[in-house]
Structure formats: structure tokens, C-alpha cells
């Protein structure tokens, strides 16, 4: 009896600290999108997840905090931002059989500094009454679309990632010409968010809009209210490709912070995030493309048709990001009508 009690006590003593374990995430992801998955993680493991959403200045913050930083996991919605973190030496290598067997080689760092968690395709929303079943990114600059295209600010990371990929395919000069065409095609100033593309199509402002795929899923799901459902009824999603490639997919990803005080829990959380269960939640909750091949596509996502991701290596795209952003300034992409 006594020994059983003492064993129980020891076990309890051993699990109690485990119950109090925590992991701290610095993320550029809006908290609403990942919170359900983090909650599920806490429920399953008892590890508390603390988050701070730092849309801008994630690098500066982690860099400034240095060795004293409480950050364990650094999570971004854009591949470029993730690479900046890695380049600045703010991540550390992780070795994990789970991660290596689940995340395809192309979607993780061989050293283990970063892992992709999901993919988000840059697609085209098309007005219901416009006859269009396939389109290339190159076509978007055609005169056919003069005054008919909606897009958000050219400086948004989603767009600079797309433009940089274009540059990897076609080089700097052609990209500039293409962007000038894109600017000329704008129906309104390049501003707002991706959902505004759908709304403006519904409002008759434009006929096509460049936007991320998952917003179409979110709007169609009705989870954001009836109004957005109504917008999504007015659009179709078309998966564009490059003339000599596939659909541009930006990844969200994460890496363990260089000075992580809870390294073990950080790895545990990473492994959870790519698990079948969490990936299914990702797909269902955010309508993104999972990185885990076992995870099923959400029906709404599958309905857009088979997607062939562009295969240009990320390392080739990265160097073009800054140049793409500069060209956006040079041609005044974000200023409408002049």
C-alpha cells in the first residue's frame, strides 16, 4: 500500500512539472487561424501554449531579445520571412524522425532549421459570368483584362513572393514589363486584402482578382458570415500556372528558436503540427494545402481541381524578393491612375 502510494507520488511528482510545461510561439500568423490547433495540442499533451502575434518586426524582436528571448517556436505565414529568420541565425537545427518522414524533402531544411506546415496557392478568382477555365500568370498582363483586374498592394508578401517567382521564370526585364501590364489592367487601386477581390467582383468593380486560395474556402464555408458567403457565390476559383511551370504556392512554416528555453516542447509542437490529425484540422479550418501526404484535402479545396505546384526551388526565388519589391515602387504599382 505504502509503496504503491509512494510510486503514485513519484509518478505524480514526475508528471506535475510536465503538466506545467509550456511552449512560447512568436508568430506572424493571425491568432484566430491557429488557435484551435494549439488548443487541441494543449488538450492532448498538457503543454500550455503562449503566443504573441507579431505581424511585423518578428525578426527585430527576436534579434533584440537575443539569448534572453522566451521564444521557442518562430512561425511565419511567408517563406521569405522564414528564410530571413534562418539567415539571421535565429533558428537552430532540429533532428526528428517524425518531421523528416512526414514533411517532404523539398519543404524542409536539410539541416532542420525550418519546416513547412502548409501551402497557400496564389490563384485567380473569376466572376461567375466570365468564361474562363484556365489561365497562366503571364496572361494576367494581357490587354484583354484592361481595367478588369483587382489585386492587393504589390508590396504585400503574398504578391512579392509571386512576383519573385515570376522573375525566377522570366528574368528581371520581362517581369517589369509584366508588372506594368498588371498595373495597366487594374480596375481600382491595389489595396485592401484578398477577400476584397471577391467583394469587388461581386460588386462589379472587376472581373478577375489575384488572391490566395484559402480565402475562397473561408468565405464559401459561411464561417465568416452570410455577407462573405454571398461574395463567394459570385466567384469561381481558377488555378493558374506559369507557362512553363505550375501554380505558385507560398508556404507557412516554423523553426525552433536559437535560444529556445523549452526546446523539447517546441519540437513536440512542431511534430504535432504536421501530424495527420493537425494537418486535417489545418485543411478543414484554413482551407490550405497540407504538407503531410496522408492528410486529406478539405472538400472545398478539392473542388478547385487538381493543383500542380510550381517546382522552382525556393532558394532560387528568394534572392528576387527585394528586387520585386523595388520594381513595385519603380513602376508605381500601388498608385492607381497615374
Amino acid at each position, binding site marked *: 500500500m505504502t509503496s504503491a502510494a509512494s510510486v503514485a507520488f513519484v509518478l505524480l511528482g514526475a508528471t506535475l512539472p510536465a503538466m506545467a510545461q509550456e511552449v512560447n510561439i512568436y508568430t506572424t500568423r493571425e491568432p484566430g487561424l491557429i488557435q484551435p490547433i494549439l488548443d487541441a495540442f494543449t488538450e492532448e499533451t498538457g503543454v500550455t501554449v503562449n503566443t504573441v502575434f507579431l505581424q511585423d518586426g518578428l525578426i527585430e*524582436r527576436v534579434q533584440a531579445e537575443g539569448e*534572453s528571448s522566451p521564444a521557442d517556436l518562430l512561425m511565419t505565414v511567408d517563406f521569405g520571412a522564414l528564410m530571413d529568420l534562418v539567415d539571421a541565425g535565429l533558428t537552430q537545427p532540429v533532428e526528428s524522425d517524425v518531421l523528416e518522414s512526414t514533411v517532404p524533402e523539398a519543404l524542409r531544411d536539410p539541416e532542420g532549421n525550418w519546416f513547412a506546415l502548409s501551402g497557400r496557392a496564389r490563384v485567380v478568382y473569376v466572376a461567375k459570368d466570365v468564361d474562363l477555365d484556365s489561365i497562366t500568370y503571364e496572361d494576367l498582363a494581357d490587354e484583354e483584362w484592361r481595367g478588369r483586374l483587382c489585386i492587393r498592394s504589390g508590396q504585400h508578401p503574398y504578391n512579392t513572393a509571386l512576383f519573385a517567382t515570376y522573375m525566377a521564370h522570366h528574368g528581371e526585364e520581362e517581369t517589369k514589363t509584366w508588372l506594368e501590364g498588371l498595373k495597366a489592367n487594374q480596375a481600382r487601386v491595389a489595396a485592401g486584402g484578398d477577400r476584397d477581390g471577391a467583394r469587388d467582383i461581386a460588386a462589379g468593380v472587376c472581373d478577375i482578382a489575384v488572391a490566395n486560395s484559402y480565402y475562397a474556402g473561408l468565405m464559401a464555408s459561411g464561417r465568416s458570415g452570410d455577407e462573405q458567403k454571398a461574395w463567394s457565390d459570385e466567384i469561381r476559383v481558377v488555378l493558374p500556372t506559369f507557362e512553363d511551370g505550375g501554380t505558385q504556392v507560398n508556404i507557412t512554416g516554423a523553426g525552433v528558436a536559437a535560444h529556445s528555453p523549452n526546446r523539447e516542447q517546441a519540437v513536440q509542437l512542431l511534430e504535432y503540427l504536421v501530424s495527420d490529425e493537425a494537418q486535417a484540422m489545418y485543411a478543414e479550418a484554413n482551407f490550405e494545402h497540407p504538407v503531410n501526404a496522408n492528410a486529406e484535402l478539405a472538400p472545398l479545396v478539392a473542388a478547385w481541381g487538381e493543383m500542380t505546384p510550381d517546382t522552382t526551388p525556393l532558394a532560387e526565388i528568394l534572392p528576387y524578393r527585394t528586387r520585386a519589391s523595388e520594381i513595385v515602387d519603380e513602376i508605381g504599382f500601388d498608385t492607381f491612375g497615374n
Partner: protein
Amino acid sequence: MHMQTTMPAPTRVSARARPAMTPWAATAFAAAALVLLPVATIAWAALADTGTLWTHVVANILPQAAWNTGLLLLGTGVIATCVGTGAAWLVTAYDFRGRGVLEWALLLPLAVPTYIMAYAYLDVLSPLGAVQGSVRWVLGYTSPRQFRLPDIRAMWGAVLVFGFVLYPYVYLTTRAMFLTQAANLVEVSRTLGVSRSGLFWRVALPLARPAIAVGVALVLMETLNDVGAAQFLGIRTLTASIYTTWIVRTDLPGAAQIAIAMLAFVIALIVLERWARRRQRFATSAQRARPMVPLKLRGAKAVCAFGLGALPIAIGFAGPATYLVVSAVRRIEFAGFSPALWRATVNTVTVSALATAVILIFGLAIAYAARLRPGRATNTAARIATLGYAVPGTVLAIGILIPVAAFDRTLDAFAREWLGVSTGLLILGSGTALIYAYTARFLAIASGGIEAGMSRVPTSFDQAARTLGRSATGTLVSVHLPLTRPALTAAGLLVFVDCMKELPATLLLRPLNFESLSTLLYGEAARGTYEDAALAALIIVAIGILPVVLLARTGRAR
């Protein structure tokens, strides 16, 4: 050592008889140093080698951004001046049914952050919104494809939004001026045969110029600092460019360089405001304040006057507030009220209140130190303290992050080395950095307001108190605090509302798991789920109303 006994009876407040450094001066210098630190950090960052980037900034960013910013400032300034001055004159020179309500309600737009106003109008005026829908219905069109109004996402839209949400700064200062000066003006001008409408153009307006300048300087700085509203409305301003340069191109030095260029411009604004205030002080102290007897309006004229006064309230407050209430109610029906929202409200109010207390103490120290010992040192401290308001919140946040984190790290390393414990990030981790950021940012509002309030107390009062044996601090407590209470209250309320609305610094410097109403709102708006943000926005506005109404009452008491 009793100062009073050795001090010669002064005919004016003499600086020489004072010790070199009063506690008040020390506090003022400390405040100035705290504000200077982030500014110096940014200047330092701007010096870093950026290779060819600066040429890109000069060739491709600055001309366009400066042009846009100039247009925006010009338009906003004109609207804020016309609406603010006109409204102030209307409620001072005329009496009509509803004037009492207008007097304070004209301040209400202060409670609405510019970015909330922008997104409200963007939604309401969208081709799918109620306004355009009604217009189409009246004209007999069925689809927005057949007919729609011009897009608000343009310079004119931005100018209207900024002008109508920021005019209260001009209204506040101009009205105070009219209240203290109008009676004398009216009497003198009447004897000289000036008509009542002539009074406004020929007498009141020219004399209100300093007060207008003070208000407009605040309007322009608020406009210059905005990121959110300009982003929603698709206007590429200097601040937006700083943002892009820093975030998208991960180029802190480039961003710092644009920020410094902007700072130079804003310093010019401050100089203008100072110059204006100097004249105002002279003007107010030269004449006794006596309320003007307003002209009684009846019938159609009274209705017109009320309608005219109500218009800016409708555009700057009632419109967006109604929109927020409607969307919030719809949202609660759809998704309920989240506990996160409640926590964010508590966080916001707590941090804002703490920051307001700190800011008032520093503001008081700066104003009183300059009064005790007028001279280059205290004046410089006062100027430096206003600098933080001139730096865009985003840039200021970075300027604070770097030195504060360095301090935290050093302390942590020291504690680990010598005490064997980790202090973690003491200032960043505890949220103290937020209070620091608000202080650096809004100290200008407090010190300016308190200084103006104190300048109305004749120095002979100080001398009398000192001769009667009060210490400097005693004089402050028994003479200045009671006499400047309206100014202190007004400063405190303005600062509190501004802290509640603050976004960029809060976003960058908050600790783990800390959401304020504005960060919550921003997170939702960044996802494009504006509807979820409506409730947070509504709470910001609702809490902001109370101080604004109080502010109106202190304004009247003055």
C-alpha cells in the same frame, strides 16, 4: 538648510537663487532622455551602410510618397481647419436649440481611431453597401455593374476620412480661444461698426490663427503617423513607405533614413506650433477672459445652425458608430461574445491608465521645471520631450525595442552570472515597455497642455507662495495643481484616449499572450475578417466616449 530664509525677496522668479538641479528639473531631464533614447537609436540605425538602397529610396519612394503625403496633409488640414473653426464659432457666437449638445458632441470623433473610421466607410460605401444600394434603387438600377459611385479608395476619400475624424483638435483649441477672447472682440468691433458675420472673418479668425495652428499641427502629426487607414484606402504615404522598406525588404537602415527625413519635416511643424503658441500666450494673458453673449437664433435659422453643427458629428462619429453597432450586433448573434474580448478590454484600460499616470507626472515635471528655472536646459528638455509624437509609432517602437531589449539581456546575463537566477526579459516581458512606448509617444500632448495651463497662472502667485514659506513642491501642490486642474484633466483624458487607440507600438512590444483591443482588432482586420473586429472597435469607441465627454465639460469650465 532652509532655502526660504536665505533667499532674497524676489521681484521676479529668479533662477540664480535656486540650486543647480531641482528634483523637478531632474525628472524633466530624465523624461527627455527617455524620449531621446529611441530617437537616437533610429538615427544610429539610419547611419548603417545600405549600399545602393538610399538611391532607390530617393529615386523611387520619396518623390511619390512625399507628394501623396503632402496632398493628404493639405487636404486634411484644410477640412479640419474649416470644420473645426466653423463649428467652434457656431457654438460660441450663436445660441440655438441643441447648442448645448453640439458643444460636447463635436468632440466625439476623437473617440474613433482613424483606421476604424476608414474601414467603416470602406464597407458602408462599398458598391455592395447600403448607401450605394439605395442610390441605385432610387435611380432604378438593379446591379452595381450598371451604376456605381466613385471608389472611396482614393485621395479624396482619405482626405475626408482624416479631416472629419481629426477636426476636433482644431475645434478644441479654437473654441477655447473664442471663449476667452470673444467678449472683448465683440465689444470693440461693434463700436467700430463691424457686422456679426464680419466679426468672424475680420476679427475672430485672424486672432484665432495661433489656436488654429496648434490644433492643425496636432491634426497633421496624427495624419502623418497613420498607417492603418492609409493602407485600407490605398494611399502610399511616407509612413507606409517606411513600413514597406522595413518589413517587406527587411531593411531597417532604409526605413530609418526615411523616418529621419520625415522627422526633419515634423520638427518644422513643431517649430511652427511653438511659434504660434507664443503669440497665443501673449494674447490670452493680455486680456481678461469673459464669455461672449451669443446671438439668439430662432425658427429656420436655428434649425439650419443645428444642422450645420450636427453634420461633422454625423460624418465623424454617428455614421461609423452606427455601422459598428450594427455589425457588432450581427456578429454577437452569429458567433457570441468571446472572453478574449473581455480580457483585452481589461488589459487596454489598465495599461492606458498606468501610462496616463506616468505621462502626467512627467508632463508636470517638464512644465514646472521650465517655470522654476526658465533657461536653455529646461526649454531644450521640453522640446525633446515633444519629439516622440513626431516619430511614427512603428519606428518609435523599433527605437524602443532595441535599447530596452539590450537592457533586459544585460540584466538577465548579470543575474545569471552572479546570482544564478534568470530575470528573463524584465521590461519587455512585463509589459513595461508598452508604458514606455506610450510615454515617449504621447508626452508631447501632456507637457504642451500642462505648460499652456500653467502659463495662465501669474508668476506673482509663485512669489507669494514662496515668500510665505512654501517650498517649490509645496507651491506646486497648493497653488498650481488646483489652478491648472482643468488643463491637467484635459491632458490626461486626451492622453488616455490616445493610449487606448495606439496600435503599432503595442503590436511590436507586447509580451506573450497580451492582447489589447487594438491588437485584437488589427489581428482580425489583417485576416480580412472585419466583422469579428467590429466588436473590439465598438468597445474602443465606447470607452473613448467617456473621457471625451468629460473633456468637453472641463473645456466648458475653463
